[in-house]
């Protein structure tokens, strides 16, 4: 059987016992090299020091003498479920940049809090950075429970405090675990000293994390690493090389290079020993040749003509964290690196600076070491990117100051300075329209398989809202295809364009103050994220209408499943093309269990909470 793999980072304040917990985990699961434990124990004895499990990890002499972790060490270990790489991040404030180096490569984190010291500066700072780095699975370990006689009250008190802090960042822990690294309680084995605790051990918690799937269903993106031609070895291929960060590439497809907007067609996908491939997916370092030769360079992003295009801008709105010794400031030249692009950059404006430990927001025109900020960056030329909500891989960047990476961040949007296009400002504001209608505008976006019940629910919600005297309107994907979108078919490109238009119309109606009920299969996350971004987070309510595929097939209200199963409809969602489940919908309606009436009530509750 093919075993899974996962990278884990262990973070938290200095001296809260991170290395001890890992040392324990390695020792108690028999993952140490033979003789290592004895070797370190003997060394301690020779130097009349009390042995600690942390010494196993803090392998460097500098560290052993000071008892702190300076850099992120990695170690390997495996369970029957999967193989792990554990990154031990330093808890010292001074070494925050090393913590980031370790944490950025992880898909899940263990955050350690010392029960005696409680929540400290880096207990909070590290959490903030984890969320910026895009790490969604975080288990919190309350360590040194042995010092408090394994008291449940002590544990619960800390858990409540920390939950409150996490809430401010809109984060949730996957679990809270009481442990003692020194005594080995609840690390690899459950402990009889913690009988009040029914949850998992650290080892079980690790296996409970989920591995991140490669984004093969998202639009294709390949940042060009180089264009190779090795003529000196009688090799006349001109190969565009790079790693596919999302989606997939197939021979014969039309590709567009951004930001140059040059176009060509994929002639071949090249392998090592001359083997020819027809398709390659996300995660592969690959190379391809083109039908028509065009001049392209390292730094461009390759996308498919039929899919959602990346954005191009020379000014971007971002969130960033700063690790440099010198502050990030205006009127200074930096470099920004994103994908394989590198471009000169200046800080144009800061909307707020955030103390990541105390969550104090400040307004000033520089960002100091270890602070975060929301800013606008001005670039020397246009770059190609995706907003991070749409594609993580092409939406994050680093900043280089004086030869060194000094900060990192995520792009929220590009700021277009469109020539000859002006937004015509009227004399009526959105607020006035809302007052007039006695409601706020809202887009309720119903997504789900065909036959899951999107339209049936939306019809009832619309009926009820009108009965209550509200202004609502239903935008049904099928209905729009009869008019506005009648020029579109069902190719991937047309589907993306279909959603783009529906989202634009929904956004206009919402701005008019209406409650818009959109019913669209919208099978991909990036489609729904596009709509969410276009409308704005505060006015968007994603409803996942969920039903098992078998249920939908048995319902088959439009007879489409039968056709699709007979192969008469190509790319039918659920049968011959993928439906990506929403990551964080505001509401999930399981129509296997809920009736239409009950589903309607759920939606109404959510709408009322947002609009009135």
């Amino acid at each position, binding site marked *: 059987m093919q075993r899974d793999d996962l990278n884990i980072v262990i973070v938290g304040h200095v001296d809260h016992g991170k290395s001890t917990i890992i040392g324990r985990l390695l020792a108690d699961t028999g993952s140490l090299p033979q*003789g290592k434990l004895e070797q370190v124990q003997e060394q301690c004895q020779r130097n009349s020091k009390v042995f600690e499990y942390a010494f196993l990890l803090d392998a*460097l002499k500098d560290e052993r003498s000071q008892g702190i972790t300076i850099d992120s*060490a990695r*170690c390997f270990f495996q369970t029957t479920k999967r193989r792990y*790489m554990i990154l031990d991040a330093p808890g010292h404030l001074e070494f925050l*940049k090393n913590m980031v180096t370790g944490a950025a*490569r992880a898909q899940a984190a263990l955050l350690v809090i010392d029960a005696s010291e409680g929540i400290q500066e880096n207990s909070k700072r590290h959490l903030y950075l984890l969320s910026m780095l895009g790490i969604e699975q975080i288990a919190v370990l309350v360590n040194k429970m042995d010092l408090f006689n394994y008291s449940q009250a002590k544990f619960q008190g800390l858990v409540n405090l920390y939950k409150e802090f996490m809430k401010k960042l809109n984060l949730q822990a996957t679990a809270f675990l009481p442990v003692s690294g020194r005594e080995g309680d609840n690390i690899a084995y459950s402990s009889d000293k913690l009988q009040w605790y029914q949850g998992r051990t650290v080892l079980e918690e690790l296996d409970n994390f989920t591995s991140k799937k490669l984004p093969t269903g998202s639009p294709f993106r390949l940042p060009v690493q180089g264009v*190779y031609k090795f003529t000196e070895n009688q*090799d006349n291929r001109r190969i565009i090389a790079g790693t596919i960060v999302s989606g997939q590439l197939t021979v014969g497809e039309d590709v567009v290079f951004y930001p140059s907007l040059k176009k060509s067609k994929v002639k071949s996908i090249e392998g090592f020993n001359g083997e020819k491939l027809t398709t390659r997916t996300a995660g592969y370092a690959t190379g391809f040749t083109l039908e028509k030769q065009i001049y392209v360079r390292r730094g461009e992003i390759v996308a498919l003509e039929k899919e959602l295009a990346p954005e191009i801008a020379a000014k971007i709105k971002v969130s960033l964290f700063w690790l440099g010794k010198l502050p990030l400031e205006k009127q200074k030249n930096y470099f920004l690196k994103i994908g394989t692009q590198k471009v000169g950059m200046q800080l144009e404006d800061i909307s707020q600076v955030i103390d990541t430990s105390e969550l104090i927001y400040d307004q000033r025109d520089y960002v100091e070491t270890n602070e975060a900020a929301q800013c606008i960056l001005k670039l020397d030329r246009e770059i190609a990117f995706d907003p991070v909500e749409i594609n993580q891989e092409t939406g994050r960047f680093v900043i280089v100051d004086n030869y060194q990476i000094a900060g990192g961040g995520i792009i929220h949007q590009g700021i277009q300075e469109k020539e000859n296009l002006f937004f015509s400002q009227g004399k009526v504001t959105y607020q006035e329209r809302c007052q007039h209608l006695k409601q706020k505008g809202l887009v309720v976006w119903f997504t789900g398989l065909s036959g899951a019940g999107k339209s049936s629910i939306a019809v009832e919600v619309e009926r009820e809202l009108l009965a209550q005297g509200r202004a609502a309107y239903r935008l049904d994907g099928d209905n729009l295809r009869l008019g506005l979108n009648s020029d579109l078919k069902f190719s991937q490109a047309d589907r993306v364009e279909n959603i783009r238009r529906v989202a634009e119309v929904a956004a206009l109606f919402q701005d008019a103050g209406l409650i818009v009920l959109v019913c669209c299969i919208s099978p991909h996350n990036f489609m729904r994220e596009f709509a969410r971004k276009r409308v704005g987070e505060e006015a968007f309510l994603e409803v996942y209408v969920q039903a098992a595929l078998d249920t939908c097939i048995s319902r088959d209200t439009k007879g489409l499943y039968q056709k699709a199963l007979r192969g008469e409809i190509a790319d039918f969602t659920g049968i011959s093309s993928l439906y990506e489940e929403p990551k964080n919908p505001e509401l999930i309606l399981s129509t296997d269990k809920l009736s239409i009436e009950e589903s309607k009530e759920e939606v109404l509750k959510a709408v009322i909470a947002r609009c009135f």
Partner: protein
Amino acid sequence: MNYLDKLENNSIYILREAYSQFSNLCMLWSIGKDSTVLLWLARKAFFGNVPFPLVHIDTTYKISEMVAYRDKLALEWKLDMVYGTNVEALEKQQTFPQGGTNRIDCCRNLKTDALKNTVNGSGVRYRLNHQTGSYEQEKNPQPFTGVIVGLRADEEGSRSKERYFSPRNKKNDWQIGEQPPEFWNQFNTDFPLGTHVRVHPLLDWTELDVWKYILREQIPVTSLYFNQGQGLRYRSLGCYPCTFPVESQARTVEEIVEELEKGKFANIAERSGRAQDAEDGGGLEELRKGGYM
């Protein structure tokens, strides 16, 4: 993608980044299994070509099969092969055990210093002439600014602290606490004049991964790794005065994988047959701070 695919593709990404960033790039090839895997990955990254020279530091104490194997592959794969030697230390016999020094100083002279001077262009360098099949001394050796090295984090403690791209200053020092951060596939590739950057594409591989990959890809490795009938094989290759074979029956790559996974070496560190590690207090930190690989 399984994890071996992930490791492979990530290493190729790093190799391509290195190639795009350094005009004077080389790859160290110790002839051992790790750097041979690295060489294989480079051929994959560049579609069958290796667009930079391979550098071997010849201490003259290398086991003779190693050099024969090096030259065979270099000719077969059309590699731009270069080797460097600390001629002066050898002349003055500052070596172990023949000369008056200990193991650590011998390593420093024949490996660390030889490497330093080969990389910065001040030492004696020989280049393979593919027409004649023999080596010629380079007339005007240029410094290399980027050096690709096959070290792995699981080898020993100090190596687990390395970055993929690790800058070294003029004195070749490694300042561990001062390393700049590295994340999201972005590396530190900008550097002031006079420094060079070491690139570590195999950092996340374990010894077992390396052997599994050799097995999967059918990569040729030197026969020293296999038991030739005496019940002995080398697990790690170095100079003969300081590297000892281990007792093992493994005659094939399959048997080595088996031995590492479930057999007698499942829990024994790879470098336990290297005597200089023990002399350095159990770690290589002192040597490595001064530029040892």
